[in-house]
C-alpha cells in the first residue's frame, strides 16, 4: 500500500484521539485525588508487536516505559479476547510498585491486532510505609509485586487476584475505585480501536500505524542530523540513597553520528542500597523525553523516535538496576537527575536550546496514619513543584513541575476534606532561583500542620546538591525538609521516615532552578 501524505496526517488524529478518550474516562471515573485531581496517569495504544502507536500527553516518565510493559506482557502470557493484564513488577515491565499498568489485548476477526494500556499511580500498594515509597533495602519491602497477571480472563474477573490486591493495600476502597476506572478506560480504548478497524479496514490501519512510526523516526533523525557530530559528556550526582550518606554519580556520553545517536551511561555508579535505583524503562523514558522536547511539538507520541537512538546502560548500575534492588525513587527522583545529565551534555551541542537545571526532584511527600475524625486509615501522597531552569533568552518559571512529571497539586481545601492535615502556608520561596542573565525559577514552600499523629516518608533530592546553571549562570538553591515542632526547627534528611505528632508542621522548601548566562554586575 502506498502512503498518502494526507491520510497519514488524518490517521495521526484518528490514533491520537483514542488514548485521549481513554484518559477522559480514567480521570473522571477514578477515585483517588492522586489520579483524579493530580492526573498521575497515562494512556496509550499499541500495535500487535507492542510498538506504541499513540500516547495521550500525560506523564512523561510513563512514556518510554509503557512499551516495555506491553512487551513484558507479550512475553509472559497468551491472550484471548476479553483479557485484561495487570502488572507493576519493575523487573517485568513496571517502573516502581505504585504505578500499576493495565493492558487489554485487542482482537479483530479472532486475530490479535493491538493493545490498549494505561498506567496510574496508586497512593498505596502496601509495603513498609504508607504510600509504598519507604526507605527500603529490597524490592519486596516496597509493596505488593504483581508480575504480568490476568485480572480478567475472557471477560471474567479473576476474583482471587482482585481480592489479593485489595487485601495488600492500606486503602482498599480507593484502590478498587481506581482499578475499575482503569478497566473502564482500557475497554473504551479496545472499543474505539475495533471501531476504527471496522471503518478503515485492518490492512489500512496497520499500514498507517507503521507509517506513523516511520514518520516520527524521520522527524527524530532530522533533528539529530542537525546536531554537530561528536561525543558530548556530562555527569551529576544524587544526594544519596537514604541508606548511605554519599553522592551517587550518573554519567552520560551522547555520541552523535549523522542521524544516529548513542546514549551511553557507562561510568554511572553501581546500583544503590536504597531505593533510588532506576530500572532500564525509566532511563529509556528520560532519553525519549529529552529528544521529544527537541523535536517539533506536533510529532505523534510513538516509539518511532527511539529507533534513531541507542540507549546503553550498564547492568547492575543505578540507571539499570537488577533484582532485588529497591526502586521506588528511581521513577520519581533519579529520572529527574538523568534528565539533568542528558541536558548538561546536550548544552554543549545546542547551547541556544537547552535550559539550565530545573529543581531536579519531585519532593515526594507521603503521610499516612489513622484519621480520628473519619475513623479510618488514610494515605496522602503528593509531589511538589519547584523552580525551572532559566532558558537562553528567558527566566525560568517559578513554582512549577518540570521534566518527568506534571501532576497537579492537591488544593488546600480538598486536603482538609480528605485528611487530618491542614495546609498552613503555600508560597513561592523567594530568591531560591539561581542568578544569571536570565534567572532560574524560584522553588516553593508548602507547610502541612498535622492534626493527628502520623508517619511521613520523604523522598527528595537536591537537598545537598544544587541545580546547575549554564553559560555562567549561578546554581539554584538547595531544597530543605524541616520539622517545625514547638519553637524548634528540625532539619530532616532528603530521604527518610519521620514520626509526626499532632501539632507538628512539616515544611517542605523546594529547590530553585539554575540561572542562564552571567548575571549583570
Amino acid at each position, binding site marked *: 500500500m502506498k502512503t498518502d501524505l494526507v491520510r497519514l496526517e488524518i490517521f495521526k*488524529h484518528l490514533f491520537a484521539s483514542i488514548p485521549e*478518550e481513554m484518559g477522559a474516562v480514567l480521570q473522571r471515573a477514578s477515585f483517588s485525588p492522586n489520579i483524579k485531581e493530580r492526573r498521575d496517569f497515562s494512556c496509550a495504544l499499541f500495535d500487535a508487536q507492542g510498538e506504541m502507536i499513540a500516547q495521550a500527553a*500525560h506523564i512523561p516518565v510513563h512514556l518510554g516505559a509503557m512499551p516495555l510493559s506491553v512487551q513484558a506482557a507479550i512475553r509472559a502470557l497468551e491472550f484471548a479476547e476479553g483479557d485484561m493484564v495487570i502488572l507493576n513488577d519493575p523487573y517485568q515491565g513496571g517502573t516502581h510498585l505504585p504505578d500499576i499498568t493495565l493492558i487489554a489485548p485487542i482482537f479483530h476477526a479472532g486475530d490479535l491486532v493491538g493493545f490498549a494500556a494505561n498506567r496510574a499511580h496508586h497512593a498505596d500498594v502496601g509495603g513498609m510505609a504508607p504510600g509504598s515509597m519507604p526507605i527500603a533495602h529490597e524490592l519486596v519491602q516496597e509493596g505488593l509485586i504483581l508480575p504480568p497477571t490476568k485480572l480478567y480472563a475472557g471477560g471474567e474477573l479473576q476474583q482471587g487476584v482482585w481480592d489479593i490486591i485489595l487485601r495488600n493495600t492500606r486503602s482498599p476502597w480507593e484502590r478498587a*475505585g481506581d482499578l475499575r476506572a482503569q478497566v473502564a478506560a482500557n475497554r473504551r480504548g479496545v472499543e474505539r480501536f475495533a471501531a476504527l478497524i471496522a471503518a478503515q479496514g485492518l490492512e489500512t490501519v496497520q499500514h498507517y500505524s507503521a507509517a506513523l512510526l516511520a514518520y516520527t523516526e524521520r522527524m527524530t533523525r532530522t533533528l539529530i542530523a542537525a546536531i554537530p557530530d561528536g561525543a558530548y559528556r556530562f555527569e551529576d550526582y544524587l544526594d544519596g540513597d537514604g541508606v548511605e550518606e554519599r553522592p551517587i554519580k550518573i554519567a552520560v556520553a551522547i555520541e552523535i553520528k549523522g542521524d544516529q545517536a548513542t546514549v551511553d551511561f557507562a561510568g554511572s555508579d553501581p546500583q544503590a542500597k536504597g531505593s533510588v535505583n532506576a530500572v532500564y524503562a525509566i532511563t529509556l523514558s528520560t532519553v525519549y523525553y529529552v529528544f521529544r522536547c527537541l523535536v517539533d511539538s506536533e510529532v505523534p507520541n510513538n516509539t518511532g523516535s527511539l529507533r534513531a537512538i541507542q540507549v546503553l546502560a550498564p547492568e547492575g548500575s543505578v540507571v539499570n538496576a537488577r533484582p532485588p534492588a529497591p526502586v521506588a525513587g528511581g521513577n520519581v527522583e533519579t529520572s529527574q537527575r538523568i534528565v539533568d545529565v542528558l541536558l548538561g551534555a546536550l548544552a554543549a551541542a545546542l547551547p541556544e536550546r537547552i535550559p539550565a537545571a530545573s529543581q531536579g526532584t519531585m519532593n515526594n511527600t507521603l503521610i499516612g496514619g489513622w484519621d480520628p475524625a473519619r475513623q479510618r486509615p488514610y494515605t496522602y501522597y503528593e509531589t511538589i*513543584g519547584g523552580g525551572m531552569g532559566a532558558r537562553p533568552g528567558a527566566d525560568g518559571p517559578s513554582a512549577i513541575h518540570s521534566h518527568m512529571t506534571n501532576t497537579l497539586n492537591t488544593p488546600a481545601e480538598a486536603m*482538609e476534606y480528605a485528611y487530618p492535615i491542614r495546609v498552613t502556608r503555600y*508560597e513561592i520561596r523567594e530568591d531560591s532561583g539561581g542568578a544569571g542573565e536570565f534567572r532560574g525559577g524560584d522553588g516553593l514552600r508548602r507547610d502541612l500542620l498535622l492534626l493527628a499523629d502520623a508517619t511521613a516518608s520523604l523522598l527528595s533530592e537536591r537537598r545537598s546538591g544544587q541545580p546547575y546553571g549554564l553559560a555562567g549562570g549561578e546554581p539554584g538553591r538547595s531544597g530543605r525538609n524541616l520539622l517545625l515542632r514547638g519553637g524548634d526547627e528540625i532539619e530532616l534528611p532528603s530521604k527518610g521516615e519521620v514520626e509526626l505528632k499532632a501539632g507538628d508542621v512539616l515544611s517542605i522548601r523546594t529547590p530553585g532552578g539554575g540561572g542562564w548566562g552571567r548575571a549583570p554586575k
Partner: protein
Amino acid sequence: MRIGIDTGGTFTDFVVFDPESKHIETFKVLSTPQDPAAAILEGLGRPEGQSARDLVHGSTVATNALLERKGARTALVTTAGFRDVLHIGRQNRPALYDFFADPPAPLVPRQHRLEVAERIDYRGEVVTPLDKAAIEALIAHCRTHEIEAVAVSTLFAFANPAHEQAIAERFRAAGFPVSASHDILPEFREYERTSTTVVNAYVSPVMGRYLGRLETALPADRLQVMQSNGGMIGPQQAASEAVRCILSGPAGGLVGAQAVAAAAGFDKVLTFDMGGTSTDVALIDGAPRSTSDASIGGLPVNVPMLSIHTVGSGGGSIAFRDPGGGLQVGPQSAGADPGPACYGRGELPTVTDANLLLGRIRPELFFGGQMALDTARAERAFNGLAAELGIPPEEAHLGVFQIVNAHMARALRVISVQQGQDPRDYTLLAFGGAGGLHAVELARELGMPRVLVPRQAATLSALGMLLADATKDYSRTVMLPGATEFTDVQAAIAPLIAQGQADLAAEGFAAGEIRIEASADIRYAGQSFELNIAFGESLLADFHAAHQAAYGYQDPQAQVEIVNLRVRAIGLVEAPQLPTFTKTKVNLEEALIGRYPVRFAEGEVETPFYAGERLGTGAAFQGPAIVVRADTTILVGAQDRAEVDEYLNLQISVGPA
C-alpha cells in the same frame, strides 16, 4: 420592541422582534473595535416611536479586557500564607514537551497580592480570628498604588463568609469595588475560586464603564446582557459580575442554534462555527451542555457557562511541510492580517486558498463580490508547498481541505464520542463564515445523516440573545454525606432557591414567569470529580445510575458525598416564533448563478452555483452544488441532497462515503 445585539470582530449584528406584528428583522453595522458602543448606537440610531426597547446585548468587552490584559489594576486580599496560590495555580506546566512554554502570568502581580492573618477550617469554624486592624494598612497600600479593583478570596469562605464579608466591607467603605469569592463562586478548590474572583474584579470595572456609557446614551431603553450560561442578566449585575459574561457572544450562538434546530424538528445537534483563526463546536441534546470548569486564556473561570470546545483551526490556518516530510495545517494562522494569500497580502497557503483553488469559492462572488480575490497569488503559494512536498499542486489543494477536516472531526469527537454520545444520532448545524464549505464532508466522516445551515447562519448569536431568558446561577459547596436526611438537604438548598426567586421578583418577574432548576454535584467519597444530578428525592439513586451510564460501573454500597448544591433561577420571557414561509413553485434555473468546474476527490465536476436568497421553501436539488450567500458559501456533495425548509434553512441529507 425586542432587539438582540451581538458585537463581532467585523460586524455588529442586530435582530429586531416586534411582539405586535411578530415580525423579525435583521441588519448589520460595521463593528468599531476601538469603541464597540459606537456601532451599537449607530445601529439603534433611529428609534421607531418613543416606546422603550428591550435590548439584549452580547458583548466582547469583558472577553477582550481579559484576553488583551486591559482590565483594571487589581489587588487580591487572601489568607496569610496563600498569596501565591494565584501564581502557583495547580503547579503544572502548560506544555509537556516544550522547554520554552510559559504558564500565563497571574492577573495580579505579587506586590499587590496582600495577606491578612485569619483562617477558617473545612467545617466553617474559625481557627485564627481575622486581624481586622491589619486591613487598614492594606487599604493604604491600595490607595498608594492606585488600585482600581479588589478581589477578596480567603480559605473556606464558602463554608463561613464572615471574614471575607468583614474585609469586603472595609474596602467598600474605603471606596474600592470589591469582588468577594463567597459571592462570585462559593465553591471549594481555592485556586479556581480565587482565579474566577480575580478575573471578575479585573474585568468588571471595564464592563461597568462600557455599560454605563450605553445606558447614558439610551436612557429610554431597557438593557440586558447575555451571560456565558445562555441567559441574560441586568446591567447592574453584569457590571459587578462581568465574569459571567466572558462567553457572551458564543453563548448567544448556541441558544440561537438550539431554537433554529428545535423549530426544524431536531433536538440533537452538534454545532460547528468555523471562523478565520479558530472553530467552536458544541453539543446540544435537547439543551446545550453546561460546564463549571472552563478556562479562558489559560485562567480558570468556573462560573457556569455553556460548554463550548474551541480548536485553533480555521479558514486562515496555514499549510506547511514539516521536517519529517509530512503535510500539516495550522495551528499558525494568517488571521485577518496578512490573511490568506488570495486576500493579496499573505504569502503562505491557507485553507481558504485551498477552497478557492478547488473552485469552491468564486472570486467574483466572494462577500457579495465586494472583495477581490487574487487566485494567481494563492496558486503561487500552493505551488511552493507542493514542490517542497514533491506532490502535484492539485493533490495539495485537496489534501489541505481534508486535513483541516480531520482537525474538525477530532474536535467534534471530543464533544460527542468522548462524552458517550454517538454523532450518528446528531445533526450537524453549521454557521459562521467558513463552516458551510466543510460541513457535508465532516458529517460524512462522522457518519452524521444531516447538515442544517440556518437561514440566520450569519446572525445566529444576535438571534439567540433575542430568545434568551433571564438566568441567575447560585451554588454552594456543602460537602454533606450521602446519608444526610433528604429534608436536611432540602433545607440546605432552600436559601439558594429563595434568593433566586427574590432576585428575579426584584427584576419584575411574576411568580408564574419564574422557573427553578435545582441540582446537586455528587460523587463517591474519595472521588474528586462530581456528577451533576437534578435535585429530587431520588437524588442518590439517580447518581448511581448516572455513574453507571457515564463510567460503566456503580457501587450502591459505597459512601456518597453531596459536594455542591446548585440553583438556576430562570425568568421566562416571550420568545419570538421564527417566521415560516409557504412552499412556492420553485424554478431552480432562476436561482442559478452559473456552472463552474469544482474539484472533488473523485475529480473535477461542472457544478451549479445557486444564489441562496433566491432559493425559496421547497427548493430541492441533488449535489454536487454550491449555494452562495452574501456571507457564507455552502458545499453540497454529489452524494447529498439539499432542500430548503419552511424556515428557509438549508437541510442537506448526507449520502454515504
